[in-house]
């Protein structure tokens, strides 16, 4: 059912004409709120031998477009588009300055709802784990052997993913939609991978441990639904890296993470939703 619908032709809301004419864009995803396009070309830096000190990205660029929503009152629509576009870009900029691995943002046009950023090329954590599980399962039939291989191949990456998320939360930033698809593994060098956190469309600033716990809980749910066999083990490693990451923040970090983990327990018990009265 779902697949049939995805194949249906959906008319795309139009990007500003100037951009479409000038650049070669490929639509790569259409969410509820934004269209995501790929462009090999940078919006304002041409390729030229004189330009050697420029932040060029060989993996190309992403244009994220929040089209106007005709169902919304025009004033409300303009406000929301501007507000959300800017909030996403501010998060990206702030995180980049702090050294958290996120796509570098290139430019923004808040009135048009356009963000340009670096394309992160690499498998999503989801696909990467699937790939590894497949390899491991083909190598041995023995569960103890497989467990050992998982620890060898997967644990290190999940520790570093947890650590990257801890940097985000340590800065009192909440992602809002942490899933194994929004964590991308970029090839660093010689087969070494580094996790990059993407899609800050729902991100926000929050000092509450509760909001960070919900971020982690949403990610846990994503693990359970996409990697049900070993979800618990994976989450364990990820949280180990997360807690260790906070440990680097000295006393405040240790205090913060203790509060968050306490909240996480509570959120797990009640689920994300409060119980409903009639």
């Amino acid at each position, binding site marked *: 059912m779902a697949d049939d619908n995805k194949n249906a032709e959906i008319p795309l809301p139009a990007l500003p004409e100037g951009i479409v004419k*000038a*650049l070669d864009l490929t639509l790569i995803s259409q969410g509820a709120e934004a269209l995501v396009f790929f462009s090999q070309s940078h919006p*304002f830096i041409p390729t030229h031998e004189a*330009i*050697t*000190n420029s932040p060029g990205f060989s993996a190309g660029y992403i244009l994220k477009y929040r089209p106007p929503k005709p169902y919304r009152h025009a004033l409300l629509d303009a406000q929301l588009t501007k507000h959300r576009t800017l909030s996403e*870009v501010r998060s990206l900029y702030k995180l980049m300055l702090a050294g958290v691995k996120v796509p570098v943002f290139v430019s923004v046009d808040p009135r048009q709802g356009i963000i340009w950023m670096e394309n992160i090329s690499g498998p999503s954590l989801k696909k990467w784990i699937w790939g590894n599980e497949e390899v491991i399962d083909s190598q041995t039939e023995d569960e103890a052997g497989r467990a050992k291989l998982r620890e060898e191949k997967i644990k290190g990456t999940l520790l570093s993913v947890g650590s990257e998320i801890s940097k985000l939360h340590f800065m009192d930033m909440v992602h809002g939609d942490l899933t194994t698809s929004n964590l991308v593994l970029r090839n660093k060098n010689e087969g070494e991978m580094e996790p990059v956190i993407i899609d800050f469309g729902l991100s926000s600033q929050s000092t509450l441990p509760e909001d960070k716990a919900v971020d982690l809980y949403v990610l846990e749910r994503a693990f359970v639904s996409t990697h049900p066999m070993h979800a618990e083990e994976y989450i364990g490693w990820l949280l180990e890296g997360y807690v260790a990451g906070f440990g680097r923040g000295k006393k405040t970090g240790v205090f913060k993470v203790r509060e968050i983990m306490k909240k996480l327990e509570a959120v797990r018990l009640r689920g994300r939703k409060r119980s409903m009265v009639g």
Partner: protein
Amino acid sequence: MPSTPLTLTLPQFPSSPLHLSLYTNVTNAPTIRSQLLSGNTAYSYAFLDPSTILSISHVLAAVYRALTEREAGTMRTRTVNSEIVFSMAPSMNIGDALKRFGVKDESTALFVVKVADEAEDVVGAEEVGVALESIVEGESVALCDDALQALTDIEVVRKNYKIPQGVVLNDRIAAAQIVTGAIALRGYS
């Protein structure tokens, strides 16, 4: 023989070519400044102080911002040239931006930008070279990032963009990411 500027087009604005020139050992900066202030139309270029510039892409970020504002009809200054200088700044203070990034009386080097399109002045690179020869008394240098890098005062850049001492700016590419971000976010943060 006058030297020819470097012509570049921003991928998103293919019909607005830019002619870019770099001069060192400039001796008539006060004259240029006063002609600009008096509104002499022969001086319709953006004159930038290279000590405030990290790289060509740094300037292109400001040009891109200016062209985007011009397209939307939301420029804050009167001309695209002053808008480019203003767009170099991370703040909304126009006077301060022109003072920091534009030509100063004591400037001995200049980075000159000409937007050569229908909205401004359709003009070729060679013509611009000739015109600038009579405006700028100085030495024309072939524009490239290496040449620019020699003229940058990194501490001025740090001060202009309020980059904390903790952030190392030795890596020009990482530094350019920081300043282009600040340029794109001007007025929004």
